[in-house]
């Protein structure tokens, strides 16, 4: 029963977003445009260490793309549905709350998969990127599963922020955080004091985890995974707190 409802819920979420060009186009187009420009057109033939820029930036702009998709898919949609009272209608229905959240995770991962697939195609076709099958698998898995902690962070923002401020807050967090953690410019190219700050940001760990699958990552994969899991738990905890707080505060 719950599995069936989750599937229906996921199908509805996907349909809902697919018919919403204002969400789909920026989410898909930004990482593709940035990667094409910075990773392929401008620096494609250069190398960072032994790795081509095309391969390096596939990992980092891949991380940039899935983080954006996760933050917006969760944060903005939950903040809107909460602010407009739609979430209350769902909560008053027998829909299992887990179905709502799992459907959002699956929808986010579906969009993340599309983003990663498009970037990989561009990398192979125009960047000459070649990886062993196990390398592709590890990279794709790191990026798609790595979106989950950012879904949790988005969810927390969606439950704590107002419906109108959520998109602004997410933009303010998303773009600087991506830059400061080396998703646009390699950490090595950042000023040292920024490079020192980077490990405090969850995006740094996703970027390095993805880079590790193709070679040039800093730190151990296990550490990155652990830090990302902690962020996921913290995000989910903050969201649960926000949800609980709604129960006492909702006016009427």
């Amino acid at each position: 029963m719950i599995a069936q409802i989750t599937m229906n819920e996921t199908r509805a979420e996907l349909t809902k977003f697919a018919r919403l060009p204002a969400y789909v186009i920026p989410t898909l187009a930004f990482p593709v445009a940035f990667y094409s420009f910075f990773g392929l057109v401008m620096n494609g033939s250069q190398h960072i260490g032994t790795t081509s820029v095309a391969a390096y930036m596939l990992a980092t702009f891949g991380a940039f793309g899935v983080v954006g998709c996760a933050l917006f898919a969760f944060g903005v949609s939950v903040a809107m549905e909460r602010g407009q009272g739609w979430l209350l209608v769902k909560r008053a229905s027998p829909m299992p709350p887990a179905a709502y959240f799992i459907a959002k995770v699956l929808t986010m991962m579906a969009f993340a998969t599309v983003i990663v697939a498009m970037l990989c195609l561009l990398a192979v076709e125009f960047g000459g990127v070649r990886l062993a099958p196990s390398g592709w698998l590890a990279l794709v898995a790191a990026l798609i599963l790595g979106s989950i902690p950012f879904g949790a962070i988005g969810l927390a923002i969606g439950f704590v922020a107002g419906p109108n401020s959520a998109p602004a807050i997410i933009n303010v967090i998303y773009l600087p955080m991506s830059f400061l953690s080396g998703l646009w410019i390699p950490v090595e190219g950042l000023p040292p004091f920024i490079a020192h700050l980077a490990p405090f940001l969850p995006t740094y760990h996703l970027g390095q985890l993805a880079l590790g699958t193709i070679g040039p990552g800093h730190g151990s994969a296990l550490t990155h995974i652990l830090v990302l899991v902690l962020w996921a738990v913290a995000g989910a905890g903050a969201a649960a707190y926000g949800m609980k707080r709604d129960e006492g505060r909702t006016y009427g």
Partner: protein
Amino acid sequence: MLDTQIPARLARVTKRYGAITALNDVDIALQPGETLALLGPNGAGKTTAIRALLGIIAPDSGTATLFGKSPRTAVNRNRVGAMLQVSGVPATLTVREHVRLFSSYYPHPLPVAETITIAGLRGLENRLYGQLSGGQKQRVAFALAICGDPDALVLDEPTTALDVESRLALWAQIRSYVARGRSVLLTTHDLAEADALADRIAVLFGGKIVAEGSAAQIKARAGGSTVRCTSGLDDERLHAIAGIDAIRRADGVIRLTTHDADAVVRALYQTDPTFTLLDVADTPLEEAFLALTRTPASQEITV
């Protein structure tokens, strides 16, 4: 009656939001098969009462139950359908997609086509929600409330902001659902609506139930008109005139609340040569509720 047979009950429920007491020791029960209207002006606590009943807000004290158990248990959610005040429903799903999704939450839903027919949405199945008119959107909300074939329906201001046509249509749809032997609790700030739909009315004002009774009983107390006049009669003589419910004086003008303005005016012309009629107007509901809270007798008209 066994508690498990009472579709919905608030027992001594109090709910505060900071300094505001939204519900103050509210006791109310929806009986099986009846339509109960919770009538009150905006801000009276109606929506809070509905949300407490549905288990989406937690009361500070007292208990909310559906069929004798917590509204949060899955089995109870299955037996209740709710129509809440919502400013946004996902706009990019069609009417049928919305109904089909909500139906799938329930173990024994109505067939989707039947829900769509009852809610008066035939011909609109493939329309995106965002393209519907206000009345059609309300009918979708109604469809989502009934699609699970629930034993009890909870409707929060179902017809607010609807035009007359849409309103009458929704009334007809609510009545057709009641005719299936179901219980309905609805909130409204419109006495006429409560009168048209409900077997019993509970008046909520300032977070308290101030009156409870049949539609006729409530109308007799809360409805009526206000006669503005000047007169040489004192309060005692005025009270002697049949039909006057309340008297207020300000700046030499007397305001008489009555449910038979014709009779009162006729009697005043006969008994008081100095009587001057200024105007007669329908008593605004807010004023009527205030009158109810001031009249000690209002506590006694419980059936």
